[in-house]
Structures are given as structure tokens and as C-alpha cells.
């Protein structure tokens, strides 16, 4: 396992797309909490300067207080997951474009080993991102939160696990479709169109007459997004789901299993050309 991880590390540390996309992702990752806070401060200053139109104080939006911070950060970070998706798509489709997967197998890697090494890459990158979320959460939370009792700090920490699961699921989809289509350009376009246009539209159409989300929960992208529900309405005194729901976790695990099994079947049943 360490050996396979090592192989993936050699492959990815030499990849330009990984360096570029990874850096953009990291900058966005750090800039989001810092930037959001500056934005609130800016609103606050507007208020102090006499305009009563925007009577906003940071305390009205305790987004970085403990308890709330985990869900809020994880929720915002969902929007930059697509950068990591690009990394996996480029990485996996290049193995087919360059035929290096074929050479890996000729050299003595098993087909199962190849699938497993890519899954390890997904697990490792999701794990590192989740650790970063935890570290950043602690730093930002400690800086802004009035509460610092251990019990409060770790309450809702399970959103970090939800974030991990969300990443693993999203990247597993990318692995499966990259192995299926072997074309990074087309796949990136399809991913964007499907996640931001097709599925949201169908979700809207279906949920109105059925008047319930039970079906749309099973849509592939929803299965990943729903792990971290939208917290924003909370600050406008509305009811939101502020916990990780078990059925969402089960649906996500199911889809991870399906994506990996599909990848495994594609690799083992097809000739590697």
C-alpha cells in the first residue's frame, strides 16, 4: 500500500497540472475565511460611516464561531472541490493517453493494483484537504470565537468527516468517468455542465410535483453536496439542517462503492490498449 502511494506521489509531483491547480486550490482555501472576514469588516465600516442601510456587525454573522465554523467552512469549500476533480481527471486520463497504464501493468503492476493506487491517491488527497480544514478551522475559530470550551469546539466537528466523504465521493466519480471516457477535456466540460446545469435543473423539476427530496437525494451530485447542507438561512432566522444526516452518509458510501466497482470492472474486463 505504501509502495502504491509512493508510485502515485512520484507521478503527481512531476505533474504541472497538479502544481498549478493545487496551488490555486490552496490559495482559495486560505483566502476564503480570511477574505470573508474582511468583507464583513468592510460592511461594518460602511455602517459606522453613518449609512444606516447596512447596519451589519460581525457579531450578527458568527460564521466563524465554534459550532458553526465547521459546517460553514466545509460548505464553502465544496465550491472549490472542482479544482481537485480536475487534478484527478487529468491524472487518470493521461495514464490512458500516454498508455502508461499499459506499461505499468507490463512492468508488473496488477490491474487491481492500478485501481487501488488511484483510490489511494483519492483517499490521500481528501485526507490532506480535511486535515487542512481542521487546522484552518481551529486557527480561525480560536481567533474569532468567544467560546473556547472543548465541548463546544468539537461539537459539529463531524462536518470535517462529511467534507472528507464528499471529497472521496466526488473524486471517485472523476476516477470512474476518466477510466470510462479516457478524455480529460470532454470530461471536464461534462462535469461542469452536469453538476451546475443538468442535475440542478432536473432536481428542481422533479422536486416540485413530488414535493419531497427523497428522490433527488439519490442524484449523484446531490448525494455528494447533501453531506454538508446549506447553512446560510440560519443567519436569517430560518430553520436549517445543522447536522450530518446518517442517510446522506449511507447514500454517499453507496455511491463510492458503485464508482469504485465500476472502475474495477472497466479496468479488469477491458483490454488495456
Amino acid at each position, binding site marked *: 500500500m505504501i*509502495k502504491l502511494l*509512493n*508510485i502515485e506521489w*512520484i*507521478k503527481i509531483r*512531476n*505533474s*504541472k497540472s497538479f502544481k498549478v491547480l493545487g496551488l490555486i486550490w490552496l490559495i482559495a482555501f486560505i483566502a476564503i475565511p480570511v477574505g470573508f472576514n474582511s468583507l464583513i469588516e468592510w460592511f461594518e465600516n460602511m455602517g459606522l460611516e453613518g449609512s444606516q442601510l447596512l447596519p451589519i456587525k460581525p457579531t450578527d454573522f458568527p460564521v466563524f464561531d465554534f459550532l458553526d465554523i465547521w459546517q460553514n467552512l466545509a460548505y464553502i469549500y465544496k465550491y472549490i472541490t472542482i479544482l481537485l476533480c480536475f487534478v484527478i481527471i487529468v491524472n487518470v486520463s493521461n495514464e490512458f493517453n*500516454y*498508455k*502508461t497504464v*499499459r*506499461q*505499468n*501493468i*507490463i*512492468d*508488473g*503492476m*496488477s*490491474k487491481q*493494483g492500478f485501481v487501488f493506487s488511484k483510490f489511494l491517491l483519492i483517499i490521500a488527497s481528501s485526507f490532506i484537504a480535511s486535515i487542512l480544514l481542521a487546522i484552518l478551522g481551529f486557527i480561525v475559530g480560536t481567533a474569532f470565537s468567544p467560546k473556547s470550551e472543548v465541548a463546544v469546539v468539537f461539537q459539529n466537528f463531524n462536518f470535517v468527516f462529511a467534507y472528507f466523504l464528499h471529497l472521496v465521493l466526488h473524486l471517485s466519480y472523476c476516477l470512474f468517468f476518466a477510466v470510462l471516457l479516457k478524455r480529460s477535456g470532454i470530461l471536464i466540460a461534462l462535469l461542469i455542465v452536469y453538476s451546475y446545469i443538468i442535475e440542478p435543473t432536473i432536481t428542481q423539476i422533479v422536486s416540485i410535483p413530488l414535493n419531497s427530496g427523497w428522490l433527488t437525494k439519490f442524484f449523484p451530485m446531490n448525494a455528494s453536496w447533501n453531506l454538508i447542507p446549506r447553512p446560510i438561512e440560519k443567519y436569517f432566522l430560518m430553520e436549517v439542517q445543522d447536522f450530518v444526516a446518517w442517510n446522506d452518509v449511507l447514500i454517499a458510501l453507496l455511491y463510492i462503492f458503485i464508482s469504485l466497482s465500476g472502475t474495477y470492472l472497466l479496468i479488469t*474486463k477491458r*483490454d*488495456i*490498449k
Partner: protein
Amino acid sequence: MTQILEINGLNKRYGSIQAVNNLNLSVKKGSVFGLLGPNGSGKTTTLAMLLGVVKPQSGTFTWFGEPASADARKKIGAILEQPIFYPQMSAAENLKIVCKIKGVDYSEIDRVLKWVNLEERKDHAFRGYSLGMKQRLSIASAMLCNPEILILDEPTNGLDPQGINEIREIILNIANSGKTIILASHLLDEVQKVCSEFAILSKGNLIYQGNVEADLNDDAYIEVASEDNSKLENALSSLIGDSSIVKEEDCLAFKSPENFDLANFNKTLSEKGIWLTHLSVRKKSLEKRFLEVLKQND
């Protein structure tokens, strides 16, 4: 004698094309085995099945007397079709991946790169290599694990004469070190120069299997010429019989009888007052043999 590779009834069909048809073949340890055939005869498909990237429809094969597995492939050095590496990575980084897969120590990298003269370029991206350098790197990569058997598929494809010569030297070197080599090629001259045994594939069928030395020596021809070839022809027909003499442009050729004594032959002719201006033994080329066999099977 130990068989390093044994193939039993291997089949592969692509749609309506039978790429490999019920192939039975075995390769002895230590031999340099030439796999011949025109383009599209099933050479690469056969090797791809032996190396685990293409699934056979039916049939089995064993490496080192064991059923095929990823672990068996770790002991094989192989290149299929063209050199394949990660283009943006350097030679050294590419070989690190191979080391990890095969379970070989990184220290071997410098050894093989030195051996194929790529040491100075080891930190340059593979993308920028010339075709000859790419071929050399892939042979280096195949030799990384000090394999018991080396499989080369068209290793001189697309190279210039100098590049072909370099690769041939390397292959002869490996062959002389006692390793088993399977060399697939449509360049017969190449196979004749390095191989001890050969098999010919056509349209997926094994149509001939033989030994290079024995096969080609059997068919040795003797070429002679003198000032007056008609006089020579008369003398020859009385010596060895009419039927086997072939008239060629400026010489006469005849199939060498067994244990033919050239010195005595020359002496006899000179006693008859015929002085030879040309005398040589011509082994049949593999190319001729190959074309004959293909014709018989058409």
C-alpha cells in the same frame, strides 16, 4: 530442457478478425527467439496477452512454469510497440516508478542509464528525447530488474541506420550474457543476425517454427564463375549432375551436397583446365525462407 514460456491454444478475436488462432509455442531458457510475421500477423497481440494487458478468448500460458501473474511479469523486461514513459518526467523519475513496481532498488537506475549511454540526460524530460534515445531508455527500463527474459517488440522501428546498429549491439550484448530474449520483428535481417530460433506467424496462425542455423545451413548454395561459364557448366554437370545447377547473371549456383569438399572441387576443376574467378558459399537468407513459407501457406 527448461521452458521459460509455454503457450497452449491461445486465441484472440477482434470482431470478425481472428488475431491469434490456437497458438502453441514454447521458448527455451537461454534462447534468442525471433517472432516473425508481416504487419498485422498477430505478433503484438500475442505479446500483449503474454504481458497481461490483453485478455485471451481462450487458452493458457505459463511463465517460468507458473500460471501468469503480476508477480511473474516483475521478472520480465518488456517493451511493446513503442517506448512508453511519462512525457513530462525525467528518465530518472520514470525509472523510479518502474523500480517501485518491480521492487528494485533505486541504485540500479544509474547502472542501466550508464549502460545505454543516457547518464548525462537522466534529468531531462522524456518528451525531449530523440527516438533513438527513447528506444535506449526503454531497453534500460526493461533491464532494470535484471530480468531472466527480455521481450522486445520491433525495437528498431523508425530508427536511422546508426540507431539500428546501436540497438543491435545492445541486444547482442544481452544475448551473449545468456539471457532469454523474445524478439518480435518484421525485419528479417535483424532476426537472422541475433536469433537462434524463430517462429513465423501469419494471420494469427503459427505457420513455421525452426532453428536459424540449421534451417539456413541446410540450404547452402555454392556460387562459381570462370572466364568461360559454358565450359564450367559442362564440367559441373558431369561432376554433380545437371538438375541442380542454376544459371545466374554472371555465375552458376548449385545446391551444396552434404559434406562437400570445396578444396577438392577446386582442384578437380583446375585439372580440367578451368580456373575459377569466383567461388563462394551462400547461405540462404532468412528472408528467402520466410517468403517461401508464407507462399506455401497462402
